[in-house]
C-alpha cells in the first residue's frame, strides 16, 4: 500500500472512530440519571417548575433523543460543539481555554516518561552482564514506581516538597498577580509544572523502563547485532541504529495505546494540583449534567487519543520498514 493510501485509510478509520465515540458518549451520558435544568435552577435558588420546564425547552432537552443526537452530530460537522448553559459560554471557548494546560501537562509527562524511561531501560539492559547491581537497581526502582498510585504520589510530593521543604508551589499553573516576565516567568511556570509532571510521569516511566529493557535484551541477542559487531561497526552506531531502533517499536506502540490512560490519569492529577486543565472542567460538567460540555470534552479527548494513535502508527511504519512492506500487521 502506498504511503498516501495508508495515511488516507488511517484517517478515514480515525474519523469513523471519533464518530463512534460521539454516538456512544451521547447515549451513555443520557442514560445517567440527573436533570441539568433542575440542577441549574437549584444553583440559582429557583424552585419554580415552570422555569425548569422553560429551561429544559431552551436546552432542547424536550425533543426526542434521536433528534437531539442528529442536531448534535450536525453541529459537530459545522465545528460547533454547542453551548454550555451553566457556564453561559460556548463549549469550544471553555475547552480551548483549558486544553493547552492539559496538553502541556500530558506532553511534558509523556516526554519525561518516554525519554528517561527508554534511557534507563537501555542502561539497565546494557549493564546486565558487567554491572548487574545497576540493572537490578533500575529494574526494582521502576517496579516500586509502578506500584505507587499517581494520586497518592501527588499528595506525598505536595506534603514533602511544598509543605515541609517549601521548595515548590503546591497548586496552580503560575503565581497569581506575580507580574512576571522573561526568565522569572519561565522559572515560575517550571516550578509549578514540576510536581504535577513528576506525579503523572512516574507510573509510565516505570513501564517504559521495563519495556525498553526487555526489548533491548531481546534485540541485543539477535544475529544482526552480532553481525554488526563482527563487521566492526562502532559502539554508538550499533546501539542507536541496530539495537535502539528495533527496541523502540514496542515502546512507541505502548505510548500510543496508553495515551487514553494517560489522559484519565491527567484528570486526577489536575484535581490534586488545581491545574487549570480540562480535568476539573469534565468533573464539573459531570456534576452539573452539562451535556454539551461533557460531550465536548469527551470528543476532544477522544480526538486527541485517536490522532495520537494515528501518529504512533505512522511512526512505527517509519521505524520498521517491514510494516511498510506489509510483512508485519
Amino acid at each position, binding site marked *: 500500500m502506498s504511503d498516501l493510501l495508508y495515511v488516507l485509510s488511517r484517517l478515514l478509520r480515525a474519523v469513523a472512530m471519533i464518530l463512534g465515540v460521539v454516538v456512544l458518549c451521547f447515549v451513555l451520558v443520557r442514560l445517567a440519571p440527573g436533570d441539568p435544568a433542575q440542577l441549574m435552577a437549584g444553583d440559582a435558588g429557583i*424552585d419554580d417548575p415552570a422555569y425548569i420546564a422553560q429551561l429544559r425547552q431552551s436546552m432542547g432537552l424536550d425533543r426526542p433523543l434521536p433528534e437531539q443526537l442528529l442536531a448534535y452530530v450536525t453541529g459537530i460537522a459545522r465545528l460547533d460543539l454547542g453551548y454550555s448553559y451553566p457556564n453561559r459560554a460556548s463549549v469550544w471557548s471553555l475547552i480551548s*481555554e483549558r486544553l493547552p494546560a492539559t496538553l502541556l501537562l500530558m506532553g511534558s509527562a509523556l516526554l519525561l516518561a518516554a525519554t528517561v524511561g527508554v534511557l534507563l531501560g537501555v542502561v539497565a539492559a546494557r549493564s546486565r552482564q558487567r554491572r548487574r547491581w545497576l540493572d537490578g537497581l533500575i529494574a526494582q526502582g521502576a517496579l516500586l514506581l509502578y506500584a505507587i498510585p499517581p494520586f497518592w504520589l501527588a499528595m506525598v510530593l505536595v506534603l514533602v516538597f511544598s509543605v515541609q521543604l517549601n521548595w515548590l508551589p503546591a497548586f496552580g499553573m503560575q503565581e497569581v498577580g506575580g507580574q512576571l516576565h522573561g526568565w522569572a516567568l519561565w522559572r515560575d511556570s517550571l516550578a509549578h509544572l514540576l510536581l504535577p509532571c513528576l506525579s503523572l510521569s512516574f507510573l509510565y516511566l516505570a513501564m517504559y523502563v521495563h519495556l525498553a529493557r526487555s526489548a533491548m535484551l531481546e534485540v541485543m541477542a539477535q544475529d544482526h547485532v552480532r553481525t554488526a559487531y563482527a563487521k566492526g561497526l562502532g559502539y554508538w552506531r550499533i546501539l542507536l541504529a541496530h539495537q535502539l531502533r528495533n527496541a523502540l517499536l514496542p515502546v512507541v506502540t505502548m505510548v500510543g495505546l496508553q495515551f487514553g490512560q494517560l489522559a484519565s490519569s491527567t484528570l486526577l492529577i489536575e*484535581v490534586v494540583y488545581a491545574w487549570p486543565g480540562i480535568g476539573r472542567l469534565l468533573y464539573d460538567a459531570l456534576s452539573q449534567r452539562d451535556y454539551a460540555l461533557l460531550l465536548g470534552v469527551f470528543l476532544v479527548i477522544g480526538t486527541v487519543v485517536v490522532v495520537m494513535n494515528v501518529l504512533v502508527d505512522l511512526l512505527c511504519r517509519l521505524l520498521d520498514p517491514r510494516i511498510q512492506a506489509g510483512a508485519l500487521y
Partner: protein
Amino acid sequence: MPNPLRRLQHRLKRLGLLGATSLLLAAAAQAAPQEGGVLNLVAQPEPPSLSHAVVSHVATQYVSGKILQGLLTFGTDLKPIPVLANHWDISTDGLTYTFALQPGVAWHDGHAFGADDVLFTYQQFYPQLDKRMADIFGEYLGSIDSPAPDTVVFHLKKPFAPLLSLLGSGLRPVVPKHLYEGTDFRDNPYNLKPVGTGPFVFDEWKRGSYIKLSKNPHYWKPGLPYLDGVVFHVIPDASSRAAAFERNDVQVLRAGDADYADIKRLSALPGVQTSTSGYELYSGLALLQINTRKPPLNNPKVRQAILYALNRPFIVNNIFFGAGKVAQGPFLGAYHDPQLRQYPYDPAKAKALIAEAGVDLSQVRLRLLNGEKGGAWERLAEYTKQALLPLGIKVQVVTSDAATWYQRVSDWDFDLTYNFIFQVGDPYLNNAYLYRADYILKSTPFVNVGGYNSPEADALWQKVANTPEGPQRQAVYSQLERRLNDDLPIAPMFEMSYSTLYHQQVKNLLRTATSLNEDYESVYLDGPGQ
C-alpha cells in the same frame, strides 16, 4: 504614625520613660489597621456566576459579596446594620418602610447610585427573577416609590415582619439599573463581570484558576478598604486546600473547605485561629427528610420512633467530629421554643412507638438516598441503617452522585434522605418552603418534597408572616414549632457549626452574621502583605 503620638513619645523620652513609650507605640501600631496586601481565599466550588443577585449559590455569594451590596446587613445579634441604606424608619403599623440612601455612592463604572437603582431592583429585577420574591411581594407589597432622590419607601398591603431580612446584602443586593434594564437578567454579561458599589472591583476570572478582585479606589467610605485586593483560588481537592493553607498560600478556610477530619489538625497549627462565629444569619440545620406519602412513613409515630432510635450526640461527636450540637427542634436561635418536647436517644421508646403504631415492618425496606456530600454523610447513612435495624426497619443505602440525588429527591423518588438547610434569620424565609403545602413541587430538594400537608401548619405559617415582630409573633412561632415537632415530617438532626480557620495576620474577618459573604471593607493584613 500620627503626630500626637510622636509629640507624646518626645515628652515621655524627656521624662526618661523610654520603656513605657515603646510599649505605648507598639500597642498603637498594632491597633491601627494596615493598608495594602492581597488576601488569598479559596473558591470552592468554582462559582457558576459572579452575581449573587442572579445565582444564590454559596460560592457565588462569597465572591460577589465583596462587589455587590444591599441596603443593609446583619450583626451577629441579627440586628440590621446599614449598608447602602443610611438609616430607615418603620411606621408603627408596620406598613411603611422608609429607607434613606447613603450619599455619594457610585457604581464601579462611575455611574451614580441612587433611588432609581433600588426601585428597579425591587420592582422589576427580583420579582421577575425569583418566584419566592414574586410571591411574597405579590401578597404583601403595595408599591415602592421614591419621594426624593435619596429616599425609597416600601408601602405594604399588610404587615410582613421578615421584610428587612429579605433585603439584606447577602441575599438580595441592589443591581445597577443602567446595566440591567431591558436585558435578559439571567443572560446579562455583567453576571460574569459584576459592577457593584462594594469595596472591591471585579478584575479577572481565569476559569479553573482564580478570580481576582482589586481595591475600589473610589469606595464611598473614605479610607476603606484596607486591602489592595482579594484573590479566590480554585482548588478542587480538600487535601490540596489544606496544604495551601498550611503554606499560608491561602489565609482563610471556610467551613467545607477542609474535611471535618482535618479541622482539628489545621487549627492546632501555629498562628492559626479558629472561630465558629459569622454564621448567625446562615444557621445550618442538618435534617432527615422523610417521604410522608409512603407507608409506614405516613404514620407520625413511625417518624417519631426513627428520631428516638438515632443517637444524635453520637452522630455529632463521632461522625461529624463535634462540628455541631443536637437540634432541639425545627427552628433555631431566637425562634426556637425552649419548652419544646425533645426526642432524646431512647431505643426502648422507639420500639414502643412502633408497636403502638401497629405497622407491619416485615415487608418494608426503606431506601435511604445518599448524595455526594462527603465522607461524614456517607458514614451517617451507614449508621442510620444500623440504628434502625433493631426497630425492624430495614434500610437500603442508595449512594449516588450529586446530580442523581438532586433529581431523585426533586422527583420525590426516595424514602429517607439527609439534607441540610440554612435558616436565614427568620424561618419564614427558608424553612417554610420545606413544610408549606403550596410548595409540594417537583423542582428542587429544598421544597416540600416529603409531601407534608397540614392545613393547621399552613395557617400558622401565614399567621407568622402577618404578625409584627414581638411576643405575639413568637407565640405563633412556638405554636407552629410544636405542630411541626409533633408531626415530624422532617427530623431535625443537629445544628451545624461552621469553623472558619484563618491565619492570625488576617484581622477584622468575622464581624457580622454573614461575615464570609460580607464586603471585607475593613479586613486588613497585620504583617507582610501576600
